[in-house]
C-alpha cells in the first residue's frame, strides 16, 4: 500500500461514530470531525514569529523529521477555539516530552493584528502548553499568505470550523480534519505517519 492509501485507510477507521452525519442531533451542533483523504501539501517556509518573538521560517521552525499536528486559532476567540485547544492540551500531555515525543503540535495564529507573541504566550501558558507545542504567527503582513499556503479557508476570523492538519512535512502529505476531533484520533493519526526515509 502507498503511504497515501495507508493513511486514508487509517483515517476512515478513525472517524469516531458521532462524527458521521447521522450522529448529529436536531441540528444543535452540526460540525463534528470529518477526516478528509490525505492531500499533497508542501509546508511553506514563509516568515513567522513564534511566541517568544523569534523570527524564523515556518518550515524551519519545525523539528526535522517529526510528524506535526497543525491547528488554527485566534487568541481573542471565545467559542470553539477553546475546545480545540483543550483537545490539543490532552494530545500534548499524551505525547509527553523529550526525545521520544512522536509529534510536534503547531498552532497557527489567524488574527494578523491581535495574535502578538505576548497574546500567544498568554494563551499557551493558560493551557499549560509544553515545549513541543509551537505557536506561530505570520504577523500583520504574513498571515494571509501563510494561511493561503496551508489552504485554510478565507473568511471572517470568527466564522471558521475547527481544523487540524496532521502529516509528515518531509513527505508533503497531510490529513485534514475539519471539526472537533477526538484527541485519540489525532494522536493515532500522528503516530501512524511514516518516517521520513520510509
Amino acid at each position, binding site marked *: 500500500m502507498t503511504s497515501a492509501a495507508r493513511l486514508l485507510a487509517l483515517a476512515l477507521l478513525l472517524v469516531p461514530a458521532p462524527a458521521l452525519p447521522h450522529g448529529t442531533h436536531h441540528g444543535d451542533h*452540526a460540525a463534528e470531525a470529518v477526516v478528509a483523504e490525505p492531500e499533497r501539501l508542501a509546508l511553506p517556509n514563509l516568515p513567522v514569529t513564534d511566541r517568544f518573538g523569534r523570527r524564523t521560517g515556518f518550515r524551519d521552525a519545525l523539528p526535522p523529521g517529526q510528524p506535526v499536528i497543525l491547528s488554527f486559532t485566534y487568541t481573542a476567540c471565545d467559542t470553539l477555539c477553546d475546545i480545540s485547544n483543550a483537545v490539543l492540551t490532552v494530545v500534548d500531555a499524551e505525547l509527553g516530552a523529550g526525545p521520544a515525543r512522536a509529534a510536534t503540535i503547531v498552532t497557527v495564529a489567524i488574527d494578523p*493584528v491581535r495574535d502578538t507573541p505576548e497574546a500567544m504566550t498568554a494563551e499557551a501558558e493558560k493551557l499549560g502548553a509544553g515545549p513541543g507545542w509551537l505557536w506561530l504567527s505570520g504577523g500583520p503582513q504574513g498571515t494571509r499568505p501563510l494561511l493561503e499556503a496551508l489552504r485554510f479557508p478565507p473568511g471572517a476570523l470568527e*466564522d471558521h470550523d475547527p481544523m487540524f492538519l496532521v502529516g509528515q512535512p518531509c513527505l508533503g502529505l497531510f490529513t485534514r480534519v475539519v471539526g472537533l476531533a477526538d484527541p485519540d484520533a489525532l494522536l493515532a493519526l500522528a503516530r501512524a505517519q511514516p518516517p521520513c526515509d520510509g
Partner: protein
Amino acid sequence: MRRLTAATAAALLAAGLAALAARAGDAGEALFLRGEGAEVVLAGGRLRRPASDFACAGCHGADGRGRREGGTVFPPILWSALTDPARPGGPYDEAALARALESGTAPDGRSLGAAMPRFALAEPGLISALARYLAQLDLRQRRGVTADGIALAPPADPAAARAFAAALAAENLAGGAWGRRFRLGRAAASLATAEEAAAALAPAIDRALAGLAAEALRASGQARAAVAPDAARLGPALAAQGVTLAEDAGARLAPTAGGMRLSLPGGRVLEIAPADTPDGGTPPDAMPGPLAAAALLGHEIARAALACGRGITRACLLETLGRADLAGRYAIRAAEPPASSD
C-alpha cells in the same frame, strides 16, 4: 428585650434570605457570563479546568439567542426557547438542563455534539440560578424596547446630549427602526447608555481612522509614521494596513476630540473627522469634534437598530456597533483652510 431579640432575629432572617436570593441571581449570571461556579470536563473526563473560557455566553451569545460559527450551530438557550414544547429534541426543565450540562444528554436522551462541553457544577443549586437567569435574559436584553420605541440614555455632557438627541431625531424623521422611534431615557430604563454604545463603537472607529490614515500616508508617499502615545491602540491596525511605525518618522498621528490629526513632513496637516452623512443626518463641518462624535454615535445606533431587526436586543445592538464599517463616515480635510490669495 425578648421581643426585641425576636424582631432583630426576624429582620436578620429576612435580610439573610434577601441576600441569598440576590446571590442566587448573581450566581446564575456569573455562570452564564463567566463560567463561574463550574468546571468544564473535556475529552471523556481526561481534562478538567475552570469553565471561565467556556461560559454559556461565549458560544450562545450574551443575549442567549444563539449564533453559528462555520458549520456549527449554537442554539438559542433563552428559557423560553429551551422550554418550548415544540422544540426538536424535546423541551427542557431544570432536571433536563442539569443532564445536558453534566452528561451532555438532550431531553430526548440523545447526545449533544462535541462542541457542547460537559460541566461539573460546584453546587446543584446553580441549575436553578441559571434557569432563572435564562428566564430573565429576554427581559434584560430588551429593557427600554417597547412596541413603538427604543429608549437610550444620552451622554452626560449637555452639549453632546443635544447632538446625540438631534441625530436620533433625524433618524426618527427618516422612519426610526422597525416601527419604533428612538427616545431618550434613564440609564436604568434604557436598552443601552450612550457611554456603553460609544465603548462598543470604539473598535470600529479605530479601524476607520487607521484605514483613512494609512490611505493618506500612502497618497503622500509616506510609508512610515510616528503615533502619539495616546493613539498607540491604533498601532496594530496601522501596521496591518502596511504602515511602518517608527518614532523618528516624518509623519505623525495624534488623536483629536473627534478623530485624528495627521502631520506630514513639510508642514501639511490633515484632519480626519466625522463626515457629513449622506442620508440627511448632518454633523456639519463646523461642529466641534466631541459633538460630531456624539452625532455619529446617534446615527450608528440607528443603523445598528435597523440591522438588528424587530427583535433587537442589547447584545445585538452593541455587537453590531462593534462591527460597523465607518470608512465612509469619516473624511480627511486640510486642518486649516487654504490661505487666500490676496
